[in-house]
C-alpha cells in the first residue's frame, strides 16, 4: 500500500546523515563530557562543536545555547526559569498568548498555581495573530516576561515577532518565543527576531526524539529547572545526551544549508494541498493565516465529522495526519487553540492538520486529495446530525 506520511510535527524519521553522525557516540565514544580524562574531554569538545552548529542555525553565540531533552523542556526552562529569576525584582505577572503549546500554557499555569503569579492569556484574532495593541495594554510594572509562539503547530500561523519584541523591549520586558514549528522551515535568527529566549526541538529538524535546545540572550539569568551539577554551565543538571546532541548539531547544520530551497518547496506542496482540499471537500474551513504560515503546514476543520475518525480512516489508506492537538484529541476535548480563534466546538471536532517535510512529493499530496474526499463523504454518511443539517440546507 502506498504511504503518505504528513504528520511531521508529531514525529519525523531521523535523517540518515544524522544517524550516521550519532552512531559512534553510543559505543566507541561513550565518555562523560564532565570527566577530566581524555575520553571525557574529547567528548566535551565534540559537544561544544555541536553547540556552535545549533548557534549558527539561530544566529546566536555558542554560549547562549542550552541543550535540553525536548522543545517542551526548553519552554519550561524559559518560562519558569526566567519568571523565578526575575520576580523578586519585577513582580509576578506573566503574559502568554492563548494559542501556545501546552508546555508554555501549563508552565504559566504552574506559576499561577504554585507561585501566585498572575497570568494574562492574550486573545488572538481569527487567524491566530496576537494584536500588538492588546499586548501593550497587558503590560504592567510587574510583568516578568512575554511568551508568544513563532509558528503555531496547530494552525500554522507565523506571528510578527519583531513587532511584538519591539514593544516589549521598549518596556524592558524579556521576550520568549517557541520556534519548534518554524526552526529549519523558515529563517529563525534571534538577532532579526530580537527575542531574548527561543526554544527548538530536535525531531522537527530530523534529529532524534529526546533532544532540544533553548537559546537565551547572553547575561540573562535563569533558575535551573533540573537541579544537578555543572552540566550546561550549571544551568541544567543531568549528564548530557551526547548522541542526541550530536544528532541535533548535524541536523542544524543540514537545516541551515537547505533552508532556502526547503521553504519554497514545502510552500508549493502545501498550497497544492490546501487548494485541492478546498476544491474537493465541501463545507471545509481552512484554519490559520493564509499567507503568514509555516511552509509545510496545512490545517482545516471539516464540518460534520470527527477528526479522530477521519485520521483513523485515512491511516487505513496509508495516509498519516493529525487532529492538531494530541492532548485535546485523546480526551475528546475541543482544542483551546481552535476555540481561541473562534471555531465553533462542533466544527473544531473536525480538525485535521497535515505537516509536510522534504520527503513528501506531489504524488503524496495527490494521493491525499484522492482519498480524503471519499473518507469525509463516508463519515458524513454515518452522521444523522449531518444528514439532518444538509436536509435543512445549512453548512459552514
Amino acid at each position, binding site marked *: 500500500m502506498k504511504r503518505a506520511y504528513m504528520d511531521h510535527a508529531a514525529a519525523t524519521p531521523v535523517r540518515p546523515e544524522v544517524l550516521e553522525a550519532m552512531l559512534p557516540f553510543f559505543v566507541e565514544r561513550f565518555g562523560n563530557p564532565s570527566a577530566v580524562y581524555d575520553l571525557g574531554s574529547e567528548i566535551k569538545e565534540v559537544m561544544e562543536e555541536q553547540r556552535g552548529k545549533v548557534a549558527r542555525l539561530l544566529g546566536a553565540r555558542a554560549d547562549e545555547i542550552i541543550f535540553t531533552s525536548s522543545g517542551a523542556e526548553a519552554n519550561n526552562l524559559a518560562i519558569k526559569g526566567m519568571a523565578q*529569576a526575575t520576580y*523578586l*525584582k519585577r513582580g509576578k505577572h506573566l503574559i502568554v498568548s492563548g494559542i501556545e503549546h501546552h508546555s508554555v500554557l501549563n508552565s504559566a499555569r504552574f506559576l499561577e498555581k504554585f507561585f501566585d503569579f498572575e497570568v494574562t492569556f492574550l486573545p488572538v484574532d481569527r487567524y491566530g495573530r496576537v494584536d500588538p495593541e492588546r499586548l501593550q495594554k497587558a503590560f504592567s510594572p510587574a510583568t516578568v516576561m512575554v511568551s508568544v509562539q513563532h509558528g503555531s503547530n496547530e494552525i500554522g500561523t507565523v506571528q510578527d515577532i519583531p513587532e511584538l519584541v519591539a514593544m516589549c523591549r521598549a518596556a524592558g520586558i524579556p521576550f520568549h518565543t517557541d520556534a519548534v514549528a518554524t526552526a529549519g522551515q523558515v529563517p529563525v535568527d534571534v538577532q532579526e527576531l530580537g527575542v531574548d529566549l527561543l526554544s527548538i526541538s530536535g525531531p522537527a529538524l530530523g534529529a532524534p526524539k529526546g533532544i532540544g535546545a533553548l537559546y537565551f540572550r547572553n*547575561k540573562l*539569568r*535563569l*533558575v*535551573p529547572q533540573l*537541579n*544537578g*551539577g*555543572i552540566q550546561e*554551565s*550549571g*544551568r541544567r*543538571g543531568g549528564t548530557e545526551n551526547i548522541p542526541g546532541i550530536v544528532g541535533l548539531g548535524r541536523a542544524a547544520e543540514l537545516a541551515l544549508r537547505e533552508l532556502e530551497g526547503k521553504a519554497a518547496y514545502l510552500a508549493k506542496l502545501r498550497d497544492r494541498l490546501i487548494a485541492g482540499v478546498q476544491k474537493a471537500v465541501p463545507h471545509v474551513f481552512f484554519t490559520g493565516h493564509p499567507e503568514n504560515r509555516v511552509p509545510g503546514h496545512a490545517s482545516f476543520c471539516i464540518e460534520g465529522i470527527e477528526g479522530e475518525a477521519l485520521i483513523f480512516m485515512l491511516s487505513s489508506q496509508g495516509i498519516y495526519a493529525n487532529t492538531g492537538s494530541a492532548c485535546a484529541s485523546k480526551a475528546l476535548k475541543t482544542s483551546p487553540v481552535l476555540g481561541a480563534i473562534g471555531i465553533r466546538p462542533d466544527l473544531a471536532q473536525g480538525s485535521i492538520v497535515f505537516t509536510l517535510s522534504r520527503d513528501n512529493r506531489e504524488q503524496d499530496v495527490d494521493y491525499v486529495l484522492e482519498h480524503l474526499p471519499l473518507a469525509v463523504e463516508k463519515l458524513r454518511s454515518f452522521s444523522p446530525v449531518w444528514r439532518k443539517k444538509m436536509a435543512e440546507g445549512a453548512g459552514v
Partner: protein
Amino acid sequence: MKFIDNYQADATADLVYRACPMHLLEPMELMKDLKKGQVLEILTDYDGALEDIPAWCAKNGQEFIGISEDGCDDCYKLYIKKLS
C-alpha cells in the same frame, strides 16, 4: 570576611542561580584571561562561595579583595585580584 563598597572590576562572572561549583570553575577560567593586577567581580547567590572563593585565592596565590552587597538584591559580589 572583609566587606567593601563596589569595586571597579576588569571583568565580571555572573553565576547567580548557577549550580555549585560553577562559582569556582568559571572564575578559574576567566582569571586565565586577566593580566596581573586586574580584578574579577564574581556575582553569586551561593552562600558557600563566601568561604570557597577566599580559600581558593589563598591556595592559588591570588588576592581576595572583599565582598559587597551594594546594588545586588539577590546576590553577593566578591572581588579578587590576579597576582600570579
